[in-house]
């Protein structure tokens, strides 16, 4: 393997010559190592197969200049995994076939047959997985309640610094993006409604539509989806990496509760920050709506915002804030749950983060639908 550039090495070659007694000599020459074979493995393999068919084959490998395991394996497989009777071989190349012999035939993995009940099994697995997730999340929630009681008893000893850091990260740093999205949604919604309302001459009802729609529904949902994508994924990834780097185990060893130190501050921070973000988003969306309404319908800002309290009872505001709290806790719980389940490998980290975001967005929308039914009688003027 080492006579690198000292002299040019010939390309690998197979020659079959007829010997006097009706037998054939199969002579291999040149370089039979990975560098030479890389480009020609398939053609050489078929050349060897053809050569092996000739009658009374004698193999002459003594002209091979460079050899390695890959070349040996190529020849070995053509031989049918056993040494031919007549073989000439350089002594230093013996070792490669030694390794091939030692490597007892790799047990061929039998292809799995399809189970006729596989669909049913997959369904059952899925159902049991969902149940496990739900139970574990309930357990996590219970643990958090216990921790919350402990915080209430000894409020000074608790991780307030983590809490405030999380409020800043989840709340303050999301102000710009939620404002942008909220404003644009307000503009679009107002523009579409204005077109319709003008047809029936009911321009003033733009305040009702935007007020109820944004404060009750769109504000909380849009804001929660943004936070789920932004902070939920971050929480899952952070906890997942802490699992990979064994930081979670280090916490356990020091006797520090991971729910108290890591999860409670995050859940509490989202529960505080998300309602505030909801108010902010709804407010900016209403401004966007007012801008669009003044452009489309010629309604002044003053007219829009003085009409708002009459059109939208204050209870709707509390409904929006309450939704913010519920969605926030849901997002944080789901993110933490999937974060803690991540196994120490990259695949699991990627899958866990995806699953966390998809699950939390779905959960937010499902919860929103349930709340819409529960509070269907509340908050109409």
């Amino acid at each position, binding site marked *: 393997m080492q006579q690198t550039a000292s002299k040019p090495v010939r390309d690998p070659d197979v020659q079959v010559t007829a010997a006097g007694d009706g037998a054939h000599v199969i002579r291999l020459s040149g370089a039979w190592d990975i*560098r030479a074979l890389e480009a020609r493995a398939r053609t050489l393999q078929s050349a060897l197969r053809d050569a092996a068919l000739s009658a009374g084959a004698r193999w002459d490998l003594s002209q091979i200049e460079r050899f390695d395991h890959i070349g040996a394996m190529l020849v070995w497989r053509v031989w049918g995994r056993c040494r031919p009777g007549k073989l000439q071989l350089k002594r230093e190349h013996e070792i490669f076939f030694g390794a091939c012999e*030692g490597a007892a035939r790799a047990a061929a993995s039998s292809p799995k047959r399809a189970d006729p009940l596989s669909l049913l099994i997959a369904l059952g697995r899925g159902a049991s997985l969902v149940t496990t997730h739900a139970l574990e999340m309930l357990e996590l929630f219970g643990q958090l309640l216990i921790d919350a009681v402990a915080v209430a008893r000894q409020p000074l000893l608790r991780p307030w610094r983590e809490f405030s850091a999380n409020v800043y990260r989840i709340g303050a740093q999301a102000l710009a993006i939620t404002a942008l999205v909220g404003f644009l949604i307000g503009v679009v919604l107002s523009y579409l409604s204005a077109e319709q309302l003008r047809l029936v001459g009911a321009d003033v009802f733009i305040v009702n539509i935007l007020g109820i729609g944004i404060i009750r529904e769109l504000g909380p949902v849009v804001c929660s989806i943004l936070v789920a994508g932004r902070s939920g994924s971050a929480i899952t990834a952070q906890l997942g990496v802490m699992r990979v780097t064994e930081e979670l185990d280090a916490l356990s060893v020091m006797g520090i509760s991971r729910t108290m130190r890591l999860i409670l501050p995050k859940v509490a921070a989202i529960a505080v920050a998300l309602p505030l973000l909801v108010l902010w988003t709804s407010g900016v969306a209403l401004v966007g709506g007012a801008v669009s309404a003044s452009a489309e319908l010629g309604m002044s800002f003053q007219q829009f915002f003085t009409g708002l309290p009459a059109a939208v009872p204050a209870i709707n505001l509390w409904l929006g804030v309450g939704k913010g709290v519920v969605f926030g806790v849901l997002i944080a719980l789901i993110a933490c749950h999937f974060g803690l389940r991540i196994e120490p490998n990259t695949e699991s980290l990627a899958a866990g983060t995806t699953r966390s975001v998809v699950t939390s967005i779905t959960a937010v929308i499902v919860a929103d639908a349930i709340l819409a039914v529960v509070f269907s009688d509340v908050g109409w003027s």
Partner: protein
Amino acid sequence: MSAEPAVQVEGLWTVYDDLVVHRDLDLKVMPGEVVSLVGGSGSGKTTLLRQLLGLERPRRGSIRILGVPLHSCGPDLFERVRKRWGVLFQHGALYSALSVFDNIALPLRELHAFDEDFIRDLVMLKLDAVGIPHRHASTMPADLSGGMIKRIALARALVLDPELVFLDEPTAGLDPDRSEAFVKLIRDLHDKLNFTVVMATHDLDTLVSVSDRVAVLADQKVVAFGHLDEVVRVDHPFIRNFFLGERGLRALSAAPSLQID
């Protein structure tokens, strides 16, 4: 055979901001040799190794690997020379998303030259070579012990029958028993296949039992390079502390050919 060096480093400078890591460093490793790089923490062993692998660029100086100038050879030649070396990272660096089998098969599959059946045979051959039972082929790296990860990473490093093998701390994190077995494995494979080995280590036992020559990195350059018994005679504070301290003497006493006064 007037072979050219497997590794040749000339006038290498590494500078990070104000910190000079290597100052005009030279190193020459001949084919078939086992050379150990030793040095204290922060002496630039790992940096040098990463530069030899083309992962980092030195500020100045030239590196030739197997006769190819690493930083001025163009991407095609670099790709070709890259296939002629194998690397064992300190923590194995097995791909956690792939099974043991797929980890070892990956370099072979990347060549797009062999069919799946052939690859399976070769992977099993390599597993045998490093002493891993075939039943572990479908295991994921996360479920393996440190010693097995090292062995499998070695199998992956050797799967293309490289001419040059880089080992970064091959025995770090292994218990004495495992590390002895691993060193013996490297020695055996080296004797059989005669590849060149460049390894960074600070494990004295490994150093004594495997290396043909030792390069000592200190004061930003190679302060001593030669057989172990030559190196220990060099008068340098690091060498005195490292080799002639209590631990050093104990390890050296295991080396048969060595006489220390």
